[in-house]
């Protein structure tokens, strides 16, 4: 058993269980915490896959920033937003799992039928240097575009969440 196999064997199940927990819990806070576990276990898997820097980013940015923000909002809005315990719109509650099973089934079938190009024997240089070369070389434009995207998202978030001082009378139909 290689290290990678060991990592997969441990982190994989944790990841799935946490993910399932995140999806099944009615309480968003618990779900968020479960998701964080998933994120951590994914970071471990990334390590096993030879992408240590990404693992770091996953923990720092994803788990660290995004999830914190999410949890902050959950707390901000109060715990009262726990979903109602009763089963609502049962058709949809049934459709969810069904879709998931179908989705996984189809995807698994596709994956298991193989046909992928052969794996390259060597391993890539996963160092930060190499990453930086790519990021500021081939992917410069994407990088810049992503920065514009973040700016746009910022503005969008501000605009939509900003509290209006004066509610304008809307001239449309109610």
């Amino acid at each position, binding site marked *: 058993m290689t290290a990678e196999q060991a990592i997969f064997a441990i982190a994989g199940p944790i990841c799935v269980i946490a993910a399932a927990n995140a999806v099944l819990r009615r309480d968003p806070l618990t779900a968020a915490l479960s998701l964080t576990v998933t994120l951590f276990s994914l970071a471990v898997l990334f390590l096993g896959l030879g992408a240590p820097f990404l693992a770091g980013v996953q923990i720092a940015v994803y788990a660290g920033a995004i999830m914190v923000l999410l949890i902050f909002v959950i707390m901000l809005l109060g715990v009262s937003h726990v979903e109602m315990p009763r089963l609502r719109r049962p058709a949809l509650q049934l459709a969810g799992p069904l879709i998931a099973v179908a989705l996984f089934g189809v995807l698994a079938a596709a994956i298991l039928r193989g*046909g992928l190009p052969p794996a390259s024997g060597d391993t890539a240089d996963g160092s930060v240097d190499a990453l930086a070369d790519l990021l500021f070389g081939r992917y*410069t434009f994407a990088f810049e575009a*992503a920065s514009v995207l973040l700016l746009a998202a910022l503005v969008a978030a501000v605009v939509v969440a900003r509290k209006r001082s004066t509610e304008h009378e809307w001239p449309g139909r109610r």
Partner: protein
Amino acid sequence: MTASDLLVALPVLVLAAGACLVLLGDLLVHADGRAWAWVGAAFALAAAVCTAIPAGADAAFAGSVRRDGASIFVAALVGATTAAALLLAVGYVRRMALPAAEVTALTLFSASGAVLMASAGDLLVVFIGLELLSLPLYALTGLMHAAPHADESALKYFLLGAAASAVFAYGIALVYAATGSISIGALGGISSPVGLAGIALLLAGLAFKAALVPFHFWAPDAYVSAPTPATAFMAVVAKLGAFSALLRVGAAITGPGAVAVDWRASVAVIAAVTLVLANLAALGQQSLKRLLAYSSIAHAGYIAVAASAGVVASAAIAFYLVVYAALTLGAFGIITLLENDDPRIDDLHGLARRRPLLVVALGVILLGLTGLPPTAGFLAKVYVFEAAMGAQLAWLVVLGVLASVVSAAYYLRVLFACLGEGEGEPARGPSVGGSVVVIAALAVLVLGIVPGPLLDAVQSVRF
């Protein structure tokens, strides 16, 4: 990074720079809100104009961005549409007390995303463009705090959009897993199930942005709730981005066996479902905006009809998109000119008497939407149908023409409502928005009678 790199990406840069400058300017200068719409329009127009500057290269940034007939066309059309939408917003933002600078900036950001999708060399840029296109639109949808359901629409749009983005991203991932490349060209060789699954998910994700049934559910709500100029903008620009990406992906799929055929068949089926459902749903609408929303979904269906003919239909699609842009700007533009921002069709009674010119313009636009001569809408439809017929899609064409009969029912209902007896609205003086509407209507008419120049121009478009 060279000068030619920048020139290739110039339209995107101009749009994004415009957005940033408007944001900055709003912080520094205390100007009337309307000024920002004018500035934004100027930038959008500049983006359109600068497509004419020869770049000296077909690609830039290591192949991330490319410049060809299709990207030039989309950039020009996006720029022009954005400018027109912002001009519609000039009066509107003031009347609705909207944050003009933010609206302008978001619009420009979104426009840059659309151009990015059209000029992307790889799937990653397509994905970023898609997000850049979408995120501002979510915000624009939720902007009208005073409108009754803006929050709901924004939420729906966002949740659906996020899921669709994830689907699209997963598609890219599967394609990458199957080919080891994220370049669009890599789609060509795909034959493994994983790669094919990826293609399917790419189609689903793009169909969502193009508002094709059954990925369209966000559209009616978002269109109704967004500020009307933004509605016009998203109805045109989002589709431009989505369809150019869709067509580029389709053009790249030349894989062995029946893959290309399957792609076209999938698009054809989606087109068929869209035509039927959208037109039927539009038939029962009371709200004019919602009706136009479904109508724009239906028009996406017609574009998809041509798209299912493959890349040979590029010129037809391009022509259709231009006409559709003019029609959509005109139609939603007219709503911006009404007192009521979400008028029921019955509210239009008496409009012909009070504002005859407006109704003439509306009439031209409705004829264009229906696809009746002598408007350009007719030629656009004929072009699309000819393309589909060339691809042996007779069944789809028959479905399309029948669907347009249904569409005639609801479009003409609007026209007839204007002719009815009623209070109507008080006449209003000339306005910027009014000029945009008149120009759009004239364009629809003139392009129907003298389509030659535009037709010649779109011949160079090849996705």
